[in-house]
């Protein structure tokens, strides 16, 4: 049984009807409100948060005061958030993400690939400067961290933020040891790619069978 708690922010109202959870966001929405169509509310304590338990499907309607000329974009966002929720709880590497505070923090998506010589870790980090990305390798654990500062003077006539700001950290434990001295990292179009050669001792080896 998995639970998350949704905290209403000052510009977000939560309305609960049987089987339908409605989150009303003002145009200056923050990312404190999260929802997913697979969650159904088990309890609602006023003033603090709603406890949602993962069970049977529930329909979620998101009300947006600003108009979007294409309905499909609203459903795309729903699908994206639903996937984020699934990813959040299902990921084998993600058990350390269960603390409630991490719902509001930036967790850039990452992939890990391997071929016989290397591991490749790909992280989506748009809008960062190279000097703000920190990559460290310890034994078999790779940590990518950094910070993206929000701009000052955010528009005196209004600001609507969807992107994450602040600091992030992702750690990946690799299945085998890697050679830190020959690791290479590149950052292009907002995608960080780290290539980690496997340590010699970890590469698969053929063992010859001798006939005696």
């Amino acid at each position: 049984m998995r639970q998350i708690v949704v905290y209403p922010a000052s510009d977000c109202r939560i309305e609960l009807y049987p089987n339908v959870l409605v989150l009303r966001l003002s145009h200056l929405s923050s990312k404190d409100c999260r929802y997913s169509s697979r969650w159904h509310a088990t309890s609602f304590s006023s003033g603090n948060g709603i406890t949602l338990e993962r069970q049977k499907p529930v329909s979620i309607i998101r009300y947006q005061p600003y108009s979007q000329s294409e309905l499909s974009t609203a459903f795309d966002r729903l699908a994206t958030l639903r996937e984020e929720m699934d990813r959040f709880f299902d990921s084998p590497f993600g058990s350390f993400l269960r603390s409630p505070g991490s719902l509001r923090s930036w967790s850039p998506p990452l992939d890990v690939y391997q071929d016989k010589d290397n591991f490749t870790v790909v992280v989506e980090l748009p809008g960062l400067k190279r000097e703000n990305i920190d990559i460290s390798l310890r034994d078999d654990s790779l940590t990518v961290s950094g910070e993206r500062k929000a701009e000052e003077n955010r528009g005196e006539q209004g600001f609507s933020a969807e992107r994450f700001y602040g600091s992030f950290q992702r750690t990946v434990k690799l299945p085998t040891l890697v050679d830190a001295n020959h690791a290479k990292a590149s950052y292009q179009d907002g995608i960080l790619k780290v290539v980690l050669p496997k340590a010699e001792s970890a590469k698969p080896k053929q063992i010859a069978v001798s006939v005696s």
Partner: protein
Amino acid sequence: MNDVVPNPDQRLQTPGRATREVYATPMVDVESTSESVVLRAEVPGVSKAGIDVTVENGNLILVGHRQPLDVSGDPVYLERRPTHYRRVYELDPSIDTDKISARVEDGVLTVTLPKAESVKPRKIALE
């Protein structure tokens, strides 16, 4: 799992069958000043060649096509959704569509929409 799940970037090109392009909605920060409205859209993996910004019938259409990533090997663990990006905004008539400018850097598309002179705040002098 490695056999069943193809490298997701390869799904961007599916030879041999009718392709239906998949677009995700990028996250966008919208900032409004007295001079202009600035949109910053996150489109990682999209380079300048893949950006398409059009204004049509009072709508601003942002499209970003990404090239598949050049990665060798099989996936071990996947979180990314390497889709193309598309988002449409309705433009307020006060936006001067001739002066819209856009640039992309490190996976962030910045579109600047200048407001027409008549809607900028004007001080009225006292007689």
